[in-house]
């Protein structure tokens, strides 16, 4: 499969819509562990992205530029913890996509691996710290190894999202070590990390989006 620059923009639009729908749920998770604003923050960020998608980015067909601008827009609109995290992810992805109007399966795998690893690098969190890294690191590892073997992006991405989902779910059972919820100690057990959840939702949205594109094409 391939993704054009307009596909990429459309995917970001899908995320905009998905975040609006999940806003309340993400806030609810954050109320248990943090300050209750993760859904609001994500919504502010993706609404700002929606605006640039409908203005500055209309004629843009460089997937790299699109991804950089989307990342910077998110960062400036939200600040917060997730601003630098997701922005770094998108900007690392942008490096892979630089000057490409179309991304092939190799590019896409590289994009998402860079996305996940960039976030990990920015936040300096490890698996088990109860952050979005618990979703992103298993996801990236699985994507890398499965894609290397099969060279089937859709299939590999499916496995990777599954691994990410398991990682997300594992955050329920661990004590937080990073971010606001790290102060909770034992009381954090039982609550699922909001950032791990929003990361999973984005990956899962991409999976669906990519699958629908690949069936359209074939």
């Amino acid at each position: 499969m391939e993704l054009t620059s307009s596909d990429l923009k459309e995917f970001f639009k899908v995320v905009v819509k998905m975040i609006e729908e999940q806003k309340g749920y993400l806030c609810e998770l954050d109320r248990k562990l943090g300050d209750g604003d993760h859904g609001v923050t994500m919504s502010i960020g993706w609404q700002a992205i929606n605006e640039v998608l409908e203005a500055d980015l209309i004629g843009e067909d460089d997937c790299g530029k699109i991804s950089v601008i989307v990342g910077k827009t998110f960062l400036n609109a939200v600040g917060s913890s997730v601003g630098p995290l997701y922005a770094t992810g998108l900007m690392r992805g942008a490096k892979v996509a630089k000057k490409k109007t179309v991304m092939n399966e190799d590019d896409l795998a590289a994009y998402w691996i860079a996305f996940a690893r960039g976030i990990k690098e920015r936040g300096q969190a490890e698996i088990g710290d109860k952050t979005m890294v618990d979703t992103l690191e298993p996801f990236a590892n699985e994507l890398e190894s499965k894609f290397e073997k099969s060279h089937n992006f859709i299939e590999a991405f499916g496995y990777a999202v599954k691994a990410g989902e398991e990682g997300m779910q594992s955050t329920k059972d661990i004590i937080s070590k990073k971010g606001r919820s790290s102060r909770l100690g034992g009381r954090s057990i039982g609550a699922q990390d909001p950032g791990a959840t929003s990361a999973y939702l984005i990956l899962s949205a991409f999976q669906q989006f990519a699958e629908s594109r690949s069936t359209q094409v074939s």
Partner: protein
Amino acid sequence: MKKLINDPKNVVEEMIEGYVRAHPNYIKQLPANDRALVTARETKEGKVGILIGGGSGHEPGFLGYVGEGMADGVAVGNIFASPSPDPILEVTKAIDKGAGVAYLYGNYAGDVMNFGMAAEMADLEEDIKVGMALASDDVASAPKEEKEKRRGIAGEFFIYKTAGAAADFGYNLEEVIRVAKKTNENTRSMGVGVSPCYLPQTGEPSFEIGEDEMEIGLGHHGEPGIEKGKIESADAIADRLVSDILKDIEITSGEEVAVLVNGLGSTPKMDLYIIYRRVEQILNEKGIKIYKSYVGDYITSLEMGGCSVTLMTLDEELTEMIDHPVDCPMFVQK
């Protein structure tokens, strides 16, 4: 939740607009970024610039502390969310007068990342020296051995106070940062929450709490504390807060401290002074001398109910800095 607001999406912008228009002799927005505010009086040439910032909803923290004797500029985030690097960088450029800029903020993952990115950009793109000092005064937020993991709460006020004075005294960037870090080392806080605040955009309470409960060690954004229990008398609460602080930092008889009893937003001054009364009694009994006291809403969490107690041990240098006059829209000291 009943707020006196317009569209919840615009609360921060409209607050800043009102603020800047109310105090035009004190503060102005930078044209490059409307979340970047600096002193209207212009930072003195050669003085270290003091930059503060963090999420909104903590007023007077943080924009209320820009003015003579405290900060030169502030980067304003969304409610309870760190500002992005952009306004931080803009303020940095505006207040650097050749001596570099000190970033003073609370120890939160978001702030650490955003201020960190801004500092890198200031260095790489603008060639401005940046020093950083983080507040980590909340003893409830991590064990003693991991003080660097603790979050910053009301004690941030003392850091702005002393570092602001140090910059005024002509200290260089390294020295200003040393003073800020020493202040943080000498400062401990512990809070209690009794009622939540409500994020304007969700209308939901920031934490859940029963009709007769309090939460000891609650964070300034409603982050859960270390213990929920039945609400107790003001004296019992003060006893608990002070004893947790004194378990964490040894203060001996004869030592001098500054005290801050900080309201979280909706707790009346009456209650704060009743808490103060007991804090003073305890310190008095132990022979600890109170050099100066601050009682009021210094760093809030919208309309959260509760308070925190902060103690800062003083040496000669810090005493002089606590005494230094300040003139900010939300805090004046003669």
